[in-house]
Each structure stands twice: as structure tokens, then as C-alpha cells.
């Protein structure tokens, strides 16, 4: 398993940096494994994973015990790899995370405080205490939290504990957006016009914004990943943005410095992978396109970018390398660029850590069978023999990398893996960004991947401004791992609680195929087969994005979501034939349930069931429109006539399984029946979107016409919490007059501050919350007259 091996490498190398003597790495065996794995067979995949895992030399001196200062998906991956390497692991957790997956997986676990991150996962003192208590020799920070915290790195150094990640100076230089921009400028990297400095107050923010010219982006100096970032189009929004961003920055990073810069309209977000060694060498690798974003957080990632040409790719790569060399970068990292429609690109920031969402490069690794590195990079045995101390690239690598001109390994050129331990041309060097510790499918080596798409799957309700956080208990959870070309990285299991305190990301869903079309088809399939119950999620949105014609053509930008869904995402819009399919499936399901309800056993007093009735006349309501359906069945096959057109529906009709595979006129569909009520209401997830239908027999539908409409609450005069969270501020009091759209209060949930505004102009009648309150979804906040 290359991922495992990579992990090994990273950990061993880290060890070497500390007290542990350099050891020989068994790269050749790994790479040979890579080469000889047979095609296509799932069993073989499994076998090769095992082969991969023995690629690590068990005699290698490694850490005995490391502490993972993170939670969720990344912590799980780190622990998994450590387990296979025989390294003991220590998990840290907050009290609400006590029974989460990463805690269960680790050998030891230490509670570092209560739920809020600032008191637990960001609590350096408590974590240092945990390190001392458990005698962990090193700390793996994962991503987010303390991964780019120089203070933490300094504390660790003081205790002689190894920080598994890049050097402090690089974290410091690149972690600070202002400093990184200055450095970038010095290294002749294109930067975005803007104000490089600390912004003191809202008025200064406005002045700077005017100088730069609207629109501007306001963001936290210390933050990454879109947290604390806001776009302002005028003075008022600048003031708002300054206030919210600085609060958010303070609560997430304990550092409320901000910077303001020109907002590039309609840009693409493309990032370049770089790799540096301790000898001043650096090289660049392929890009990932992460243009589909929501609130500056990546929603869809794709590699390679459909937009870049070889020339731009090279230019970006060279600048990325220049930057890496400028900070003496000795690790794997990502240089993020904004690219405008004319392929002008601007440096955005450099991530000196793992990426949340990126796994694509792992696939490329398999393609070329190249070496992978984590935050700490590792040479091949031969290179090691040459250099002896600290990792250094091979002469051949240096040849390219040293000049900063490494040609981008375009995957389409890699028709087969060519890796040889003894011959390690840099063209095949690709980077695994996720600190080398990821579950990694070695057998993919024999397939080749031109493309793959990666989704962070969030517990978010996509219908509320593309996804506000949703919390709850995962009553059912099933990953689509039975499908080919699918990988899921997650840190949850059925029964997990999703709390308001942490990142709502639940998993990364990755699919890959021999071309973009196949990768996307597999993604759609995987999304249909993903079972997540108990919390809302953004599958509907994700599935919609990948079938959107603009996305398919590659015509995307970071404004994709707001451009394509200007009035908010409303779910998949059914075509006529899709609608007929849905109605046919729903009515077949209804009849299947009804037929099953007749099948009683062991009761002699039950009436003799009469021969099957030929036709079921049903009336289905979908989106307030009533459709007439006639269904008849023979065995498991249904013939359904929907509004006059006939469809054949077949399935196993197993009514207990969460996934139902149905064939409609030969088209294969996977649907999920989420709920079914005796009154005829049924929720069906079809093409990613959940449709609510009401199915009644013809008679019941006729009588249903006499039923009275229930009166619903007028919602414009009440403000309810759209999600569970904590009230940060309340801006009004009873008697105040508010204008429509005026901010009434701010709710923080999952580390995002959400401004709640008035739905209409009026007088505040009553306020039902105060700062500091914890509110649930649907809780009444403020009433207007």
C-alpha cells in the first residue's frame, strides 16, 4: 500500500530529524509491487494492498508512539497507517467526541477539554499535557487546528517532541497571509493587488477597500480554507465583513488580524503541488482545480484541470517552485492560484500542510508509480545512499527540479506505470499531499487515471444557501465502496453524532476513471449509492454540479454556484422522462408495499387472497401536480402507465434495504426510499435529490379533495434559527424598527458565523435569544410586529 508506505516514509524521516538514526527504506519492493499488480480484479486489489503493506520494512526504526492532534477523517487515516506500522497512537478528543471513531481506533486517548475547539483541539496546554502523560515522541497535526500553528510547533520543539510537518519557519512564513504575499512578491510570483498589512478597524478597512477598488476580499491573516473570508462590494459590506471576519478569525485562530485585497471576479481556483528538499531543491507537480466553492470552501476538486494548457501549467509550476525555494521549503505543500479567464494567474496562498480535500494526487502516484512524500520528504534508497543525511532529490530530479523546470507529468501521457526503484525519473514524481498517510489503493497502478473528482461530503443542507450546517445522529450510514473506482475517506460510522462544534465535513468521496467522463459517471453512481440518514447533506447539490452542462464543458469559476443557482439551489429539475421514471418507481414501490402487506403467515383465519388485481389506479402528487398512474405487476416486473406513457419497472423490491436498484425501461437507477407514511407520503431520493410524493388510490384521492388545507404560519414576521448553533450577537431589542435585510443577530455554527436578517420591514415585537444562547434548528429568535 503506497499510502502506508508513504506514511512510513514520513514518520521515519521525521524520526530521523530527531533522535532516530537514518534507516534504509524498502522502496524497491514497494515499487515492484506497484508494477506487478494485475488489472481490474477486486480480489487483486486486496492482495496488492497487503503486498503494499509489507513494502514497509518492519525492522525500520520508527517512533514507538505518536500523538494525533486532530479528529475525524484525518485522525483516522493517520491512526490506521500507524497501526499497520506498529506505531502506537494517542488520540486526543473533546468530551463530546469521547466515543468517536478516531478515539476508538487509537491505542490511547486523552480528553483535552470541552466541546468548543478553542478549549480542546486548539488547547495547546492541554495537548502538551497529554503528550507528556502519554510519552508520545511525535505529534501529527493533520490539517486545520494546530497544523499551521507556529506557537504549537515551538512548544513541541521545547519539549523535544517531533512535529510531523514542515519546518517552523515555513509554517510561519506561509501561514501568515501578509508575510507570504511579501515573500511571493520578492520571488517574482504574481500577486493580487491589495493591502498587505494589518487592518485596525472598520473605517480603515473601508479606506483600503476604496483604494484597491471594489470588490474586495477580507480575510483572516492566520486562517486558511476560506474561514474568515468575506467579499465586500461596497462600504457597508466592508464594515460588516471586517467585523464578522475578525470575530471569526479570533474564535478560530485566536488571531484577529485581517487583510484586504482585490477580489478577482470570476476566477478559477487552481493549485499546484510542490515539493522541496533540505538541499534547496524544489519541484512542482500537477495541479488540482478547486473552482467549485461555497463560501470559499472547496466543494468539488478535480485533477487535472480541464482549463490549463501546458504553457500556463508550466508558468504556474515554475512560480510555485520559485516560492517554495524562496522559503526553503523542505516538504510537500500546495501553492494556490487564482486564474482569470485570460489565464492570468495570481498567487493566493501556500498551504504548508495537508489539504482537507485532496486525494487526487495519490491516484497520479499510482499512475506513475512515483515516490510520494508527506510533509517530510524521503529519498529512495539510492538517493539516501548518496546523501546520507536529510532527504535529497536524485541527481536526475535535481536536474529538473533544481532548475525549477520540472515538466508537469501530464497524466494522459502516462499510459503505464514506469516506476523502477533504480531509475526514478522526475517526470514520474508525483506527490501525495495528505502527509503520506492515506489509504491508498496500490493496484490502481495498473489502471491509469486521467481524471478524478473529489468531493468533500458535508452534513449540510444544500437548500439553505448552498448548505448551512446540519447536525444530528447518523441513524444509517453506508459508503458506496462496492462500486469500482470509488474511494471514501471518512471519520464516522453509523451512530456517530454530528455536533455543532466542528467542521461539518463528513467524508471525501473520490472517484477516478480512465477519463473525465468515466470519473464523473462513477461519481454520480457513488452519490446515488451513498446512504446517509439522520442528518441532511449536500449530495443533491454535488450530484447536480457534476451533471451541469457548464461543469461538464469545464466552464466553471469560483462563482459557479451563485451563477448557476442565482436563487439558491432547489434540487434537481426533472426532465419529463425523469419525472415519469420517478413516478413509475414510486408507484411500483407503493404497490410493492401494499402487496407485501397482504402476505401474512401462520394465520388460518386470514381470508383467501383473491387473484391479483390487474390494475392499480393511483394518483400521485409531486410538486403540487397530480398525476394519474395505472400500475400492473407480474412477479417483480411492473408495467406502469404514467400520464399516458408506459414504462417497465423491475427490481428485487427488497423493502428493507436502504438502496433499491431499479431498472426503468432498461435504465438503471438507484433510489432510496427515505420515508413512507400510511397517509401516502413518501420521500424518495432520486438522482441525488429527495422528492416528496403523495400516493393515494384513486378513491382516496377523490375523497382527499374534500379535506381542508391546514393553515400555515406566516414566516416573514418571525425569525427562526436555520440551524443549530450559538448566538454570538443580537443587534436588536424589542421596539426597534428594522428594515428588510437588516441584520438581527449572528449565529455561529460549525465555525461559521451566519448573519440573520429581517424578512420584512417592521418593529421588533420580542427577542427570544441572547448572546451566548445555544439554539436549535427552528428555534424562534425574534418576532416582528
Amino acid at each position, binding site marked *: 500500500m503506497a499510502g502506508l508506505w508513504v506514511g512510513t516514509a514520513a514518520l521515519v524521516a521525521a524520526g530521523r530529524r530527531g533522535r532516530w538514526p537514518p534507516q534504509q527504506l524498502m522502496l524497491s519492493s514497494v515499487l515492484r509491487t506497484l508494477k506487478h499488480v494485475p488489472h481490474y480484479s477486486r480480489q487483486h486489489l486486496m492482495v496488492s494492498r497487503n503486498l503494499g503493506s509489507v513494502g514497509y520494512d518492519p525492522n525500520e526504526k520508527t517512533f514507538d508512539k505518536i500523538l494525533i492532534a486532530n479528529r475525524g477523517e484525518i485522525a483516522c487515516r493517520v491512526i490506521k497507517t500507524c497501526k499497520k506500522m506498529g506505531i502506537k497512537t494517542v488520540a486526543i478528543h473533546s468530551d463530546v467526541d469521547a466515543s468517536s471513531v478516531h478515539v476508538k481506533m487509537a491505542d490511547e486517548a486523552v480528553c483535552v477539554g470541552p466541546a468548543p475547539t478553542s478549549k480542546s483541539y486548539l488547547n495547546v496546554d492541554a495537548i502538551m499535557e497529554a503528550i507528556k502523560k502519554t510519552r508520545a515522541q511525535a505529534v501529527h497535526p493533520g490539517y486545520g487546528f494546530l497544523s499551521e500553528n507556529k506557537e504549537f510547533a515551538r512548544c513541541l520543539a521545547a519539549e523535544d517532541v517531533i512535529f510531523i510537518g514542515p519546518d517552523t519557519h515555513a509554517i510561519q512564513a506561509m501561514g501568515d497571509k501578509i508575510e507570504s504575499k511579501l515573500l511571493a512578491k520578492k520571488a517574482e510570483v504574481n500577486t493580487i493587488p491589495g493591502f498587505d498589512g494589518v487592518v485596525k478597524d472598520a473605517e480603515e478597512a473601508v479606506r483600503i477597500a476604496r483604494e484597491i477598488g471594489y470588490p474586495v476580499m477580507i480575510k483572516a491573516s492566520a486562517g486558511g480554507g476560506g474561514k474568515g473570508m468575506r467579499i465586500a462590494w461596497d462600504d457597508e459590506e466592508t464594515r460588516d465583513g471586517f467585523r464578522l471576519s475578525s470575530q471569526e478569525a479570533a474564535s478560530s485562530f485566536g488571531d484577529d488580524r485581517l487583510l484586504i485585497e482585490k477580489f478577482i471576479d470570476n476566477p478559477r481556483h487552481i493549485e499546484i503541488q510542490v515539493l522541496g528538499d533540505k538541499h534547496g531543491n524544489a519541484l512542482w507537480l500537477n495541479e488540482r482545480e478547486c473552482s467549485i466553492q461555497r463560501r470559499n470552501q472547496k466543494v468539488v476538486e478535480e485533477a487535472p484541470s480541464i482549463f490549463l494548457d501546458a504553457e500556463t501549467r508550466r508558468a504556474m509550476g515554475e512560480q510555485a517552485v520559485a516560492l517554495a525555494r524562496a522559503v526553503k521549503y523542505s516538504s510537500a505543500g500546495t501553492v494556490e492560484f487564482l486564474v482569470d479567464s485570460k489565464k492570468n494567474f495570481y498567487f493566493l496562498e501556500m498551504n504548508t500542510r495537508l489539504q482537507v480535500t485532496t486525494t487526487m494526487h495519490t491516484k497520479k502516484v499510482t499512475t506513475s508509480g512515483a515516490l510520494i512524500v508527506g510533509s517530510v520528504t524521503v529519498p529512495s534508497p539510492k538517493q539516501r545512499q548518496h546523501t546520507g543525511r536529510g532527504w535529497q532529490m536524485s541527481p536526475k530530479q535535481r536536474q529538473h527540479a533544481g532548475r525549477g523546470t520540472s515538466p508537469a507529468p501530464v497524466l494522459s501521457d502516462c499510459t503505464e506505470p514506469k516506476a523502477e526503484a533504480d531509475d526514478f525519473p522526475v517526470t514520474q514524481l508525483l506527490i501525495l499531499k495528505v502527509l503520506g498517510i492515506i489509504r491508498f489503493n496500490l493496484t490502481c497502478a495498473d489502471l491509469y487515471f486521467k481524471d478524478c473528482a473529489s468531493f468533500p461530503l458535508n452534513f449540510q443542507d444544500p437548500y439553505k444557501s448552498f448548505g448551512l450546517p446540519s447536525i444530528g445522529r447518523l*441513524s444509517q450510514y453506508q459508503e458506496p465502496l462496492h462500486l469500482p473506482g470509488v474511494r471514501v475517506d471518512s471519520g464516522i460510522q453509523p451512530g456517530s453524532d454530528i455536533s455543532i462544534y466542528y467542521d461539518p465535513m463528513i467524508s471525501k468521496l473520490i472517484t477516478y476513471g480512465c477519463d473525465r467522463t468515466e470519473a464523473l459517471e462513477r461519481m454520480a453512481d457513488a452519490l446515488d449509492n451513498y446512504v446517509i440518514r439522520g442528518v441532511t447533506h449536500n449530495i443533491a447539490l454535488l450530484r447536480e454540479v457534476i451533471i451541469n452542462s457548464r461543469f461538464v464543458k469545464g466552464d466553471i469559476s469560483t462563482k459557479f454556484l451563485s451563477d448557476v443557482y442565482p436563487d439558491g439551489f432547489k434540487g434537481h429539475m426533472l426532465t419529463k422522462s425523469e419525472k415519469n421514471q420517478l413516478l413509475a418507481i414510486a408507484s411500483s414501490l407503493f404497490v410493492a408495499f401494499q402487496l407485501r402487506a397482504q402476505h401474512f403467515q401462520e394465520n388460518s383465519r386470514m381470508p383467501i387472497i383473491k387473484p391479483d388485481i390487474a390494475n392499480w389506479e393511483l394518483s400521485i402528487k409531486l410538486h403540487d401536480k397530480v398525476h394519474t398512474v395505472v400500475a400492473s405487476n407480474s412477479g417483480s416486473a411492473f408495467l406502469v402507465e404514467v400520464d399516458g406513457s408506459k414504462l417497465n419497472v423491475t427490481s428485487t423490491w427488497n423493502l428493507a434495504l436502504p438502496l433499491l436498484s431499479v431498472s426503468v425501461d432498461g435504465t438503471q437507477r438507484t433510489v432510496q426510499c427515505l420515508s413512507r407514511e400510511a397517509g401516502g407520503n413518501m420521500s424518495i431520493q432520486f438522482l441525488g435529490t429527495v422528492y416528496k410524493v403523495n400516493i393515494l388510490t384513486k378513491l382516496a384521492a377523490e375523497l382527499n379533495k374534500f379535506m381542508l388545507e391546514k393553515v400555515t404560519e406566516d414566516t416573514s414576521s418571525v425569525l427562526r434559527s436555520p440551524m443549530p448553533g450559538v448566538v454570538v450577537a443580537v443587534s436588536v431589542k424589542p421596539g426597534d424598527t428594522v428594515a428588510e435585510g437588516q441584520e438581527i443577530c449572528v449565529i455561529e455554527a460549525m465555525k461559521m458565523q451566519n448573519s440573520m436578517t429581517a424578512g420584512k420591514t417592521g418593529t421588533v415585537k420580542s427577542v427570544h435569544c441572547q448572546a451566548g444562547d445555544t439554539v436549535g434548528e427552528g428555534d424562534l429568535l425574534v418576532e416582528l410586529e
Partner: protein
Amino acid sequence: MAAALRVAAAGARLGVLASGLRAATRGLCSQATSVNERIENKRRNALLGGGQRRIDAQHKRGKLTARERISLLLDPGSFVESDMFVEHRCADFGMAADKNKDFTVFGGSLSGAHAQKICKIMDQAITVGAPVIGLNDSGGARIQEGVESLAGYADIFLRNVTASGVIPQISLIMGPCAGGAVYSPALTDFTFMVKDTSYLFITGPDVVKSVTNEDVTQEELGGAKTHTTMSGVAHRAFENDVDALCNLRDFFNYLPLSNQDSAPVRECHDPSDRLVPELDTIVPLESTKAYNMVDIIHSVVDEREFFEIMPNYAKNIIVGFARMNGRTVGIVGNQPKVASGCLDINSSVKGARFVRFCDAFNIPLITFVDVPGFLPGTAQEYGGIIRHGAKLLYAFAEATVPKVTVITRKAYGGAYDVMSSKHLCGDTNYAWPTAEIAVMGAKGAVEIIFKGHENVEAAQAEYIEKFANPFPAAVRGFVDDIIQPSSTRARICCDLDVLASKKVQRPWRKHANIPL
């Protein structure tokens, strides 16, 4: 009870009601047209009698006529074809509506003649063992008929009592049901209501105003919300007539036809040995933290289908029907989310009545226990928690149906005994590893045992070590096994198969004397 449509299916006619409900919609559609034609014909007849205007008025109120309700409740296919006698019976009923002035004509007040019809059908239902469903939409006794209509009520009450425990009796209140009429639903096993259009009260708002000077609306006094959340008179409320009747069909499928029949077993697609990994983490590590017992029930039962009874009343106990490997079971569970799941007066009575229904009709009981004890306080003591709590104790002890108990967390004090414990002849009693079976929680116990001691924390730790776990009960055989939560479903399904042939003989008695 003019409009109270007593639908009884008896003997050979069993097929009517049973297939009407059991067979669900089979045949419903193909026959719907012909039935609709017939309904149309009857409507036309009623029109000739001057009834269309009244029918329209009924519709305008969002309610269906008696015949429409029946057509929805029953399977028209079998209703029409299976037995002419039933047709006659129902026609008779229909005639009753015509002749004796049904609610569309006279506000559904009860006449002697009408009561007689109802009694006749109920007698037959008892004789052959067929359930009775009443669709109530009645204004009360016909004042004009005087004592005769009062006698009519009593005749029906007597049938209700005679039928109690012999055949399931269900009332669906679909309109006003006032005065004496309310006692018939009260005597039946389950009372369901329709939201916004149904009311149950002894005396209406006008009388209340004149007697107690209280201003109250019909809805506040006896609407669906009042009875399903405050009084506990009704077991569930549905959105409208159609929703209610559809749900009634669904509900009916859980019930046996009579006390001579075993619990129905429906075809099941959910594997009986399915493991439920999500249960392994559902009980929080801190014993003070709540979780939702309904989640456990959904995970364990077939296809997550659970028909909850009284979901909005005494929410600290959960009762309802579900299926295990296709077989109907009654579920009782403490709800840690509400009042820590403790037992109080209302929850004891709610639980007791449900347990007795299950026992009367051969429905196995599965009990999920997380109970910190009985609710303390003057309100409870003055209210008689002792005698009310005794009802639940009595009901569990008396029950001879298969009883499987799972202690998920706390089982403290007398409440432990009450909740279908081994000592009350629980057939299989399991504890999850998180179970704490003790006289009381560690804190309280230490305060008593080590009163005045200095090192309270150490004592508390010792108590937890010794008592707050499943071992003391397990070594004594009070729990049969400590099981992994994920295996709960598989274990229960297996036990129910074994216990299907359970037989218990009690000494003869005229009837037991439950502390009412």
C-alpha cells in the same frame, strides 16, 4: 351514536373487514370505479331524500360521509364480492343511516333503534372473534327519545366491556362526540382522533361556561391536541379523515383478530440476524447524558417501522407496535430524553394499559429499560404514584406473553423491578455492557451509606466499581446475558421464535384486581 359506524365482521364475514384491511389495497383500484358508481347511486338516492345539501355541508367542514369513510377503510373489492350477508349488514347499516337519520340529517344523535343495530353487530363480532372499529361522529343522545337513547348507550357500553380483551376494539373520532357517547371510545382499546374536526367531551363549552364560568373553545376543551397531549384520552391524532383512515388500515395490520389468534406475522425482508453496529455507540459514556430511545427501537425492529401509541403524552415512556422478523411485538421503553426516563403517574398508567392490551392479544412484549426510578415529589405522592405505579408493576407481572427485556443503561430501585424484570417472570432479560443495575445511582447511594464520611469521591468510585455495572445482576442470574448492543436484534428475534410456544397457566380466578 347515530354516526358511530360500528363495523364488525364476523364468522364468514371476517373476510370483509380482515381482507379489507389486511389485504390492504389489493383489488381496491380495480373495484374502485364500480364502488364509486355505487356510491354515486347511493348519493343520488340520498339526494332524493333531500340529503345532498347535508353531505355537501359535511364536505365543507372537511369531513367525509359515513359511506365514504367506510369505502376508504375497507377494501371495496372484497367488501362487495365476498359476502352478500355483509353487504346486507352494511346496507342495513346504510339503511340505519337513512331510516334513523344519520348525522347528515340529525347531527348524529343516538336513537334506540340505532343502538340496537350497533349491539347486534358487536354481539356477532364477539361470537366469532372479529375486531370492532367505531367511526364516531355523534352529537350525543337524542333528547327527543329520552331514556330510550340512554338505554341505547348502556347497551353499547355493555358490549364494549364484554368484548374487552376478546376482540380488539378501536374508536376513530371523526367529529364531535359528546356526552354519554364518549364512554364508548373510552372503553375501547384505542381511541384515535382527527385533528381540527373531532372533539371529545362530557359537556360542551356552553355548559362549561354556565357551570364553571370558564371560557373555553371546543378545540381547547376536547380537541385532538388536548386529548393526545394533556388528558391521555386519545392515543393518536391524524391530519384529516383520509389520513386517519389510511393510518387505521396500517395500524390494523399489527393486530390479531381476537384473543384466540396469535400475533400476526407479516412477510419480512429485514434479516432477523441483522447486526446493528450503530447501537454500540448510542448510549453516551456519561450516565447523566440523554439519548433517544426511539433511535434504539427504530434500529432494532423490522425496517425501522414503529407505530407509536400516545407519542405526545407522558413522553418519558414509549409504547407502540413494531415487528420482529415479521411478527407483531409490543414495545415499551423508557425515554431518557424526557424527565430522564423516570416513571411517574401518567407514564405508569400509559405503560400499564399498553402492556395489558398486548397480553390480552398474544402480542410479545419487548422492554427497553433505562430508568433512574420513580419521580419524587409531593405532586406525585399526593397524586398517588404508589397506586398508579403499581398498575405498571401489576401489568408486567400479570402478562404471560413472551417478555424480552433489554437494560440499556440505568435500572435503579423499584423501577428496575417494575420494568419487566426477571423477577416478574421476564422470559429473557439482557443487559448491555453500559447497564447499571442497582438500588440507586452512585451519588445518592454514597450519600446514604457513607453519610458523614470524608472521602466521598473514593466511596463513589468504589460504589460504581461494585454496583454500577451489569455484573451483580448477571452473577445472580437476574439478567440472562450481557450482550453487545449490535447483536440485540438478532438475539431478540431468536428468543421470540423459541418463546412462540410459551404457555403459562394461572390459578383460576373470576378476574384479577388491578389497583385502579
